[in-house]
């Protein structure tokens, strides 16, 4: 569905990504892991067409992103930045319905149908009760749920989420990890999400890509990753693996 070949990107003098190549198929839940500053956010930006690589290429459905019409690409994809916020106070429902923006005509306003999409998306993110509230009255986690709903309101085929689980409480981390799996299974979409929580990243994903220093350090299944020697080597994380109902979980060594 989306393929990166030999991508390179720098912020001024600082090289953020180099020689990154990967291929992500349809209907997959892919987790991006790696330490701070390893290039996860930059990779997501390239996939979201927010930044374009200085070398190499990104292709969606076999066509380079440079050739995709911006609005048409936006209709197929959804992107959640790391710290989504608005410059001026807005109600949650208005935030969510703006996820329909790529579908509007030049002078068009959102229709009842767009609002219906927005309400369904809020419902999916367990945020219906927040619809009429203003963002600046919400906690960080509640805001995150509203913005995730905004991404879902566009019913994208490719969903790119930069740390969707950060700032969520334990119950919502659990619920959202499952939600991502559900979205993939129900809508046949592909979800790529960055996360620091290896346990939740691994719990439902089909594949985990580990970034380090602007390159891909590992690309494997959760089962392969969740081994004490592998996480020690990739993350310097000293942990044991326990299996609960067949799923591997990392428990830190104390």
């Amino acid at each position, binding site marked *: 569905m989306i393929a990166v070949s030999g991508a390179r990107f720098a912020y001024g003098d600082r090289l953020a990504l180099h020689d990154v190549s990967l291929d992500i198929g349809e209907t997959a839940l892919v987790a991006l892991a790696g330490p701070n500053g390893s290039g996860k956010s930059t990779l997501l*930006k390239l996939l*979201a*067409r*927010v930044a374009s690589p200085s070398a190499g290429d990104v292709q969606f459905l076999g066509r380079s992103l440079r050739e995709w*019409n*911006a*609005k*048409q*690409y*936006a*209709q197929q*994809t*959804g*992107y959640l*930045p790391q710290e*989504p*916020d*608005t*410059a*001026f*106070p*807005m*109600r949650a429902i*208005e*935030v969510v319905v*703006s996820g329909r*923006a*790529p579908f*509007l005509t*030049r*002078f*068009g*306003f959102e229709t009842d149908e767009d609002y219906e999409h927005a309400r369904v998306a809020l419902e999916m993110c367990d945020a219906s009760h927040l619809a009429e509230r*203003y963002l600046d*009255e919400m906690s960080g986690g509640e805001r995150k749920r509203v913005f995730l709903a905004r991404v879902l309101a566009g019913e994208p085929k490719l969903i*790119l989420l930069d740390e969707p689980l950060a700032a969520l409480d334990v119950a919502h981390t659990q619920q959202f990890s499952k939600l991502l799996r559900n979205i993939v299974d129900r809508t046949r979409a592909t979800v790529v999400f960055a996360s620091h929580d290896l346990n939740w990243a691994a719990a439902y994903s089909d594949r985990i890509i580990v970034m380090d220093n602007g390159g891909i350090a590992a690309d494997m299944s959760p089962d392969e990753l969740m081994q004490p020697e592998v996480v020690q080597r990739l993350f310097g994380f000293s942990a044991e693996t326990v299996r609960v109902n067949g799923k591997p979980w990392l428990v830190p060594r104390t």
Partner: protein
Amino acid sequence: MTRAVVVLGLVLLFSIAVAVSVGATSVSWRAILDGDATARAILFGIRLPRVFTGALVGAILAVAGLTFQTLLRNPLADPFILGVSGGAAAGAAVATAAGWARVAGVVPVIAFAGALLATAAVFALARRGSHTDPTRLLLSGLVLNAFFSAVILIAFALSRQSDLTAALRWMMGTLFGASWSDAALLFTLLLVGVIALATMANDLRLLVFGEDDAKSRGVDVERVKLAGFVIASVMTGAAVAVSGIIGFVGLLVPHLIRLVWRRDFRALLPLSAIGGATLLVVSDIASRVIVTSAELPIGAFTALLGVPFFLSLLRRSR
């Protein structure tokens, strides 16, 4: 939104009607209907063009302020902070010092050129590669304003005493002597500007979520920023050239509208235009009736009327 436009539109029409009927000389509607030549000359030659020019200047400044705030995602942005008005004022001050200001029509042209030059300078200073950083834009505007203030002070020190009165009046903002051609020019610019902004409204309103987010929604952010900046600056330059420096409208009106209606750019655009027009027409009435022997600076009244209104709304909002 339609209801809000109608309500505000009626308020504007009412203030225009009041503004046309008050002034140094009382003109009765009966005299006009009776075909009194003097009354008609005052109404059609002086009052109407002045009131319409004022309304258009207000609408333009408010729309420009809204556009700058939207583009920079900053509630403090307005034509003054970005140096657009400062550039116009510096141009006018230099023209005064050089003695060119005595030739009719020179000050507006030079002020307009100053506004555009200032815009170009602010944009060039804030640009890094292909990206224009909003914070750098604001900072560049702030620094250029300091430079323009210095130019104005030096130019005034070098000006003849007799030229200074007119220059000072212009600096304080005035609608005195506004003509139908001024109104026609501003009307054309406002119409073209608002239509151009309306074609980008669905993109502009997404900037509230940040530039990266807007890009991911298919917005060509750099193009929208450049176009919005040019449109708002040209409109501001023309308004300042006609009326001098009238403060607070661009900053206050979009916020007033936002405090009451809390909507996105698409709704704020027409509402700000009508709101800005209303504030200026009401301020014009105040500047003419409070002291009948002299005309007080209209720019002072936009602030005197706008600030308490704004503060009371701010206190009532959460």
